[in-house]
């Protein structure tokens, strides 16, 4: 089943289930058996890598529409050099990996399928060295490696497409799918991934950073920074909506980290400070 064929068929299935009128968009959602719909979509969906990249690009487009890139070409190049190197240690080195820093003071990082990773300016300002950056990027690379977002979309995308009023008359082109994913994208990034996926990305991100030759304690150090912050801080209240608590993430990571105790590897604080100089000067 190609992606081109997915939307019409899936919509038709949903319309049949929901008993909706086509073209009107005023669906009676209370009558929709979403479990059956999602199951149907799951059976119909066949995401090959080129489609995954297009979906991820569409999601990245929405995320960049929410907040643009930070204007610092040297920093952007630096994050891409580090990110591409860490990504080479993953199970999917051949993806067209792209990394960017957006112009947001919120502290976070996120990924989209197919190799698109965005780190906020606010997150960059929290980091102390390149090993911490590698750890954060490793976490996001792990989400892509494990197709966590695609898995989440698979659970929810169709319900959200209905919410957008998508009818069987649309989606004949693959680009329509990307546009129609804007709603599910917004919903997904507001809700966050499953906690188990976040824990898995932590474990995997540490390993990718270690394989890349960095001090593997970069990501745990970032989590320690977050866990040390005032829990009454507004920022943390918001972070907790979409992620497990930093302390819970550290607790989950801790047993496995003992296997990495013997590693003595660089943190590259000097290089990190050099490339983030403009960022830090601008924030003063």
């Amino acid at each position, binding site marked *: 089943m190609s992606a081109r064929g997915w939307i019409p068929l899936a919509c038709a299935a949903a319309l049949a289930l929901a008993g909706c009128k086509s073209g009107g968009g005023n669906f009676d959602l209370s009558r929709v058996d979403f479990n059956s719909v999602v199951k149907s979509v799951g059976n119909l969906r066949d995401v090959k890598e080129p489609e995954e990249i297009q979906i991820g690009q569409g999601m990245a487009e929405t995320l960049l529409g929410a907040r643009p890139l930070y204007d610092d070409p040297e920093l952007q190049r630096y994050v891409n050099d580090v990110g591409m190197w860490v990504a080479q240690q993953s199970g999917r080195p051949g993806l067209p990996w792209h990394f960017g820093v957006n112009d947001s003071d919120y502290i976070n990082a996120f990924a989209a399928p197919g190799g698109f990773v965005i780190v906020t300016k606010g997150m960059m300002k929290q980091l102390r060295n390149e090993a911490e950056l590698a750890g954060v990027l490793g976490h996001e690379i792990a989400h892509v490696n494990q197709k966590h977002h695609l898995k989440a979309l698979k659970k929810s995308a169709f319900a959200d497409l209905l919410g957008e009023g998508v009818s069987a008359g649309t989606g004949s082109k693959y680009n329509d799918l990307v546009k129609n994913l804007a709603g599910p994208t917004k919903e997904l990034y*507001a809700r966050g991934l499953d906690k188990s996926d976040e824990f898995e990305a932590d474990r995997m991100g540490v390993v990718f950073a270690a394989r890349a*030759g960095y001090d593997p304690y970069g990501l745990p150090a970032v989590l320690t*920074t977050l866990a040390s912050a005032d829990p009454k801080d507004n920022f943390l209240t918001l972070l907790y909506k979409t992620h497990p608590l930093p302390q819970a993430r550290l607790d989950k*990571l801790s047993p496995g980290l003992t296997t990495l105790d013997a590693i003595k590897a660089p943190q590259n604080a000097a290089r990190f400070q050099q490339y983030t100089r403009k960022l830090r000067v601008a924030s003063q």
Partner: protein
Amino acid sequence: MRRHGVLLLLLLLGCVATAAGATERGYMAKTADLLDAPAAGARRTAGLAKRQSVDVLGRSGSWARVQAGASVGWVRSIDLRLDVSMPGQATAARVKPAGDNGIRGFSEEELVAAATGAGDLDKFRHMGVSVKDAAQFARAAGLKPRKQDYFESTDLMSRDLPADFFDE
């Protein structure tokens, strides 16, 4: 000669441990042993209570050298939390809320209002680097790739995803 080697090793460890510079203040996130060396099998010299205050004197890999009262020794960095009240530390003092309605790197309003077909996608797509350039950049900083297996809870990670992962 061997003794000199041990002394040199201790000296090097000391250098690594103090490379971070100024003392940080913190406290223990959990009950832990204070060890006489940065290793899991090192000798226990004291016990540290949860929330006990410590001064972080330096770090070595995954270990932190701390002073608790009159005792000095090593604990796992992951068991430490830094004191948020100390300016200039890597703590919440630097974590400033940008508002009260932000979600995952942007405000909810920005996310809802985001339009496709706009923004910096083209710029983003042209920012990528080649694998060769990234590898060269890594080598320039002395990074050496190493073999590292996945650890613990590797139920999903240790195997490749099946080709029909989404086909069911």
